[in-house]
Every structure is written in structure tokens, then in C-alpha cells.
């Protein structure tokens, strides 16, 4: 099967030159560090600007996957890098990136050269800059979408990549985009988020949210602009960034994010300041996005030429004698596509007992083959640490399922209790207080029975190994935060968070649990839900209705089964 080039952004001459220059520049910097010309203090900011961290066991390279879209050619390169330079696997993160946990410093220039060959890099994955923009992983495919948000993400990427004013912001700045009323991109938890909306006249524009975030002080983003015209979006974003650059706290790392500024000023005051900057930039008139430029970039993401097909769903009707394992997968991991006869298929990286988000080089290679055969050469990385085949024919689903089964990636649990987000935690991360992955594995094993998972229904568990919240614990229906008590791992439970359009921050339950107690506590909380729920009521809705008390009583009742 030949490699298919999907519709996605292709580097122009400028991009290609920029990435090649940065790669050569960093190779020189690595050489100078090894020879002693650069000290570690001089080198550290340079390596971080190129996505290279020093973690608990080794270096870690974070590779950007812009708006979560990958071609099969890129996927094969990711597999090649895992095999040749790392330990045979990669880890997909909640930022839609991929991380390698064991690269040697001496090999990193070669890795970056290999990445550049497939238009990839590790820039803007670290440091106080505008980070790699994330997007709805169903972008361009979902039936409920107003417009594909990726052209906007690409415009923001180009605008922000080298913007001289925004290289040294007070702190990192994360932007997410979505084109659908159903929020799959955790918009409300970003420094800034843009949702494509339609106004009363039926024109599309942008709703801009600001000041959301997780970490030590979680906040839900607030609306700064209800409807920003398309051509004005860069002027608007630049206005916000200017206010932030000027007024954001640089004296205290814990108060430096725009969420703190937003809440210190109040949203109304921020609106005024932004409006003033906006008027100035507009008067200058040099930040208008020309229609032709928007069209040019949008053309890269043109919908593929879908065949004219009939909808075959529900094709997983058991009475028709379908295979039970396939039916379970299809009913859980398939979402509705915009084109008749097509579907969106989630590849769960959450097999019970596996490491959430990890994939081996062999699996990555096999997925590249599946992408070419069945998904027009394309895959998405989701912030939930899964992969998504965005454009598959419904009639190919049984063959896709069989191909995924062959590489142990056909787990039918998308959105269920075992589809757990977990950050790398103390198994890998230098900043961690506690392990996350083994907790996810223990909970997944407890709930391994598929019938039980289905009975529980949608329940999102999210685990972070420290307050930095890379595992999105604040947004978990059940969130778990690892803390350190005198060198021993403890786990706090939070309930009632949501990263969807009904966004909320989870409420802390009380004293933490030990590593051995936490999975049992989660089980008792789930049992309390099952006992209290009304027909059809999700865990989150039951929690919102009855509050913390019954769950808390259950969780601390260690005698209960």
C-alpha cells in the first residue's frame, strides 16, 4: 500500500528554511556544550527552546504535533525515531505531543534532522512562549462541527512562531481551538481558547475565552470576545498578548499566568484594556488577516474527496449476527462523521494494564499502515492520550478492528472508566511528587470487566503526579492528585470536574489515600454513584445533584467492599 499524503498544512519555503536553520543551530549548540564552550547554565534555555528536558532517568524530547494532526509518513518517522534513538516506544501527551523518554544528547541533532525531513520539530514545546496550538481531535471530521478550526490554528502558529514580542512572555501561553459546540479540546482550561461560532445573521466568527488554566490555581476561562470577526482575530489576539506582556506578573512564577492577571483585573477591566490595544492595532491596519491568506491556508485542510456513500450505521447490530467483540468496539469507539457512510474511529491507547498514551514502534508503524489503507493517510492525537482515525468508511470498520486487534489496540473503552488520562508522574518526571501510571493501571484492572464499565457509563478519571496538572486532574469527573508526604506518595481525590462544554473544577474531597488505598476509594465512590443515580444519569450529573457528602462517606468507609 503506498503512502497517502492527507490534506494538511505543508511547509512553505519559509517554514522549511526556518526549521532547517533551527536544527543546524541546535546541532552547533550541542557540539559547543559537549566541548565545554557553553556551560550548562547557558545551554539549558537553548535545549528547552528545542523541546529537550532533563528528567528523572535521562533526557526527554518533546516533539510537537501541531493541532494533533499526523500523516502516515510522519507516523513512520516517529516509529523510526523510537526504534533507532530511543527504547522502542513513544508517549502521547495531553498536549497532543509525543515524548521520547530516553534520547541521548549526542543523538538529538540527528533526531531533529530526521524530524525535519517529515516537517516536524520540537520547537515551542517548552519555555515561556506561545506553545504548540491544540485543537479538537475530531476537527474536519465531526458531524457537529461548524468549521474546521485547524486553518485558524495554523494561522496562529505562523503568527506566534517567531513573533519578537512574544518570545519572552511572563510565562508559557497555551491556546486551544475548536469548531464545534461540543468541546473536545478542554477549551475552558487554556490561557486562551477560540471557539468558532455563528452569529444571528449566520456568519461565522470567533468566540475568544481567556484566563483558564489548571496547576496550582485552577480557573475556568471567561469570555473576552463573544464574536470576533475572522479578519480581526490576529489583531485581537495580539491585543490580549500585549496587555499580558505588559501587566502579567514576572516577579512570581506562581502568579505569572494570564489566569491570575484575568482574575486580578476582573474580566471587565481586561476587556477595556484589550479594546484599547485593539483599536490601536486596527487603526494601524497591519494585522488584518487577508481573505486570500485565510483561503490559502484553509485550502491545505480542504475536506478529502469523500466517496458518495450511504450511512450503514448502526452496523453493529448484534441481531444481525455481528461479532460481539467488534460490536463492543464499534458501539464505544466510533463517532459520527460529517460525510454519509464515513465514521471517526478512536484507537484507545488504554488497554487495561497498559501505560496510558504509550505506543511501541511496531504499533506506530502498523498504525501508519492502517492510516494509509483506511483513513486517507491521516491520524489525530487526542488530549485524552488516544489516537483517532478521522475519516474511515463505515464498511471498513470490521477490517480496521481486526487490524487493531492484531496490534493489541482494539480496546473498546473510549470515554469509559478505564480510558484514564495519566501524566508520566514519578516513573519518569523530574518534577513529580508521586506516580500516576501505576494508579491508572490499578484502577483499570479493578474495572476491567466490560459489562461493568458499560453499566457505569461515561466517567472520566484523570491523574496528575504533581500540582502542575499535566494529567488534567482538575477536569476529571474523578480527579486524582499525587502528593508527597515526607517522601511517601499520597493521593487526593477530587470530584465533579469537567473539561467539556459543561466545564467545572473538581472539588477536593479531604485527606489523601495511600498508594494501596486509592483504587479501593475510587471503587467505593463509583459504587456510591451506582446506588444513587437516576436512570440515565452520568456520574458527573449525579455528583452535581447530590454533592460531595455521600461520596465522601463512601470513600473513607475503608471497611466497605
Amino acid at each position: 500500500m503506498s503512502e497517502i499524503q492527507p490534506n494538511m498544512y505543508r511547509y512553505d519555503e519559509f517554514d522549511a528554511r526556518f526549521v532547517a536553520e533551527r536544527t543546524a543551530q541546535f546541532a552547533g549548540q550541542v557540539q559547543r556544550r559537549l566541548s565545554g564552550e557553553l556551560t550548562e547554565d547557558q545551554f539549558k534555555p537553548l535545549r528547552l527552546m528545542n523541546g529537550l528536558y532533563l528528567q528523572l532517568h535521562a533526557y526527554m524530547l518533546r516533539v510537537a504535533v501541531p493541532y494533533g494532526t499526523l500523516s502516515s509518513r510522519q507516523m513512520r518517522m516517529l516509529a523510526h525515531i523510537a526504534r533507532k534513538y530511543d527504547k522502542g516506544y513513544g508517549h502521547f501527551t495531553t498536549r497532543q505531543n509525543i515524548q521520547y523518554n530516553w534520547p541521548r544528547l549526542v543523538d538529538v541533532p540527528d533526531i531533529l534532522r530526521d524530524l525535519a525531513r517529515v516537517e516536524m520539530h520540537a520547537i515551542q514545546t517548552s519555555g515561556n512562549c506561545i506553545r504548540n496550538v491544540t485543537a479538537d481531535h475530531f476537527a474536519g471530521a465531526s458531524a457537529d462541527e461548524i468549521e474546521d478550526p485547524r486553518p485558524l490554528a495554523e494561522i496562529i502558529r505562523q503568527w506566534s512562531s517567531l513573533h519578537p514580542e512574544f518570545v519572552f512572555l511572563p510565562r508559557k501561553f497555551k491556546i486551544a481551538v475548536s469548531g464545534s459546540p461540543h468541546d473536545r479540546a478542554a477549551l475552558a482550561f487554556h490561557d486562551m481558547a477560540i471557539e468558532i461560532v455563528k452569529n444571528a445573521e449566520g456568519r461565522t466568527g470567533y468566540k475568544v475565552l481567556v484566563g483558564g488554566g489548571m496547576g496550582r490555581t485552577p480557573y475556568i476561562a471567561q469570555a473576552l470576545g463573544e464574536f470576533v470577526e475572522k479578519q480581526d482575530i490576529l489583531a485581537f489576539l495580539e491585543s490580549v498578548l500585549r496587555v499580558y506582556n505588559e501587566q502579567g506578573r514576572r516577579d512570581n512564577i506562581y502568579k505569572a499566568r494570564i489566569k491570575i492577571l484575568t482574575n486580578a483585573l476582573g474580566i471587565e477591566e481586561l476587556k477595556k484594556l484589550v479594546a484599547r490595544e485593539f483599536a490601536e492595532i486596527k487603526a494601524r491596519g497591519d494585522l488584518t488577516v487577508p481573505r486570500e491568506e485565510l483561503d490559502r491556508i484553509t485550502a491545505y485542510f480542504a475536506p478529502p474527496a469523500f466517496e458518495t456513500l450511504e450511512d450503514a450505521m448502526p452496523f453493529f447490530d448484534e441481531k444481525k449476527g455481528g461479532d460481539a467483540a467488534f460490536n463492543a468496539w464499534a458501539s464505544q469507539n466510533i463517532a459520527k462523521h460529517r460525510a454519509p457512510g464515513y465514521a471517526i474511529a478512536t484507537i484507545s491507547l488504554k488497554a487495561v494494564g497498559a501505560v496510558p498514551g504509550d505506543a511501541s514502534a511496531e504499533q506506530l508503524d502498523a498504525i501508519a499502515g492502517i492510516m494509509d489503507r483506511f483513513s486517507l493517510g491521516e491520524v489525530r492525537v487526542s488530549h485524552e492520550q488516544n489516537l483517532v482515525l478521522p475519516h474511515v468508511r463505515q464498511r471498513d470498520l470490521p477490517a480496521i478492528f481486526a487490524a487493531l486487534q492484531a496490534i493489541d489496540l482494539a480496546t473498546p473503552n473510549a470515554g469509559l472508566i478505564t480510558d484514564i488520562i495519566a501524566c508520566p508522574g514519578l516513573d519518569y518526571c523530574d518534577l513529580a511528587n508521586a506516580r500516576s501510571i501505576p494508579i491508572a493501571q490499578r484502577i483499570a484492572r479493578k474495572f476491567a470487566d466490560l459489562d461493568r464499565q458499560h453499566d457505569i457509563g461515561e466517567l472520566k478519571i484523570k491523574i496528575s503526579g504533581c500540582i502542575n496538572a499535566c494529567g488534567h486532574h482538575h477536569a476529571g469527573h474523578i480527579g486524582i492528585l499525587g502528593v508527597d508526604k515526607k517522601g511517601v506518595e499520597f493521593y487526593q481525590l477530587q470530584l465533579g470536574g469537567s473539561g467539556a462544554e459543561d466545564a467545572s473544577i473538581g472539588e477536593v474531597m479531604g485527606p489523601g489515600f495511600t498508594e494501596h488505598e486509592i483504587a479501593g476509594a475510587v471503587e467505593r465512590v463509583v459504587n456510591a454513584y451506582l446506588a444513587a443515580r437516576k436512570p440515565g444519569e452520568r456520574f458527573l450529573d449525579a455528583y452535581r445533584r447530590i454533592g460531595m457528602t455521600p461520596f465522601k462517606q463512601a470513600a473513607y468507609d475503608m471497611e466497605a467492599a
Partner: protein
Amino acid sequence: MAHQNHGSQMLTANRLRDGDVLYRKGDGWVLALADGDVFGDEAAAQAALAAAQGEAGRNEFVSPYLFEVRIVDGRIIPVKEREVIRAAGPTVRHDLGKQAGMVNV
């Protein structure tokens, strides 16, 4: 400022060229925790750290720091879980890291 009483300590760092975890032994480094020097008092630990910091210009290692250990039945056990994991490798992948005999060279 009075020094806290830390008990026994060891000195660790990462090798520059590949990031592998190192432990101080004499005036050099070894790859296994069990082979490293244990400093019984704060003065010896601080002296080792100062010596290592003075060698930073050799470009062999980065980020040296001290951590606490206990000796249990003749074995060195780090006090913090973090250092136990750093010395062995990920607890979720026993095929990786020092526990797997994997030296990152």
C-alpha cells in the same frame, strides 16, 4: 544558618552526553547506586557536592545534588521514593533503566 541533620547522604548527577544517572564514588562517578559513596555526615556530603560543583567545567555531568539514604541490612535504600525509582528505572517498565541492566551508552 545551621545545617539540618540529614543523616546519611549520597551525591547524584546526570551524565552530560546521554543523561544517564550517576552516583559519586571517590572523585569520579559510577552508574549503580549500590556502588556509590555514602556520606555519613553533613560536612562530608557538602564537601563532595562542592568538589563536584568545582568539576562542572569538565563537561561530564550536570545537575549534581545530595539525597538521603538509609542502610538496611547492609543495603543502601534511598529515603524518598523518587530516588528509589531514579536508581532503578520506571516501576511500570521493569525492562527499562538500571533495573534492566540498561546502561544508556
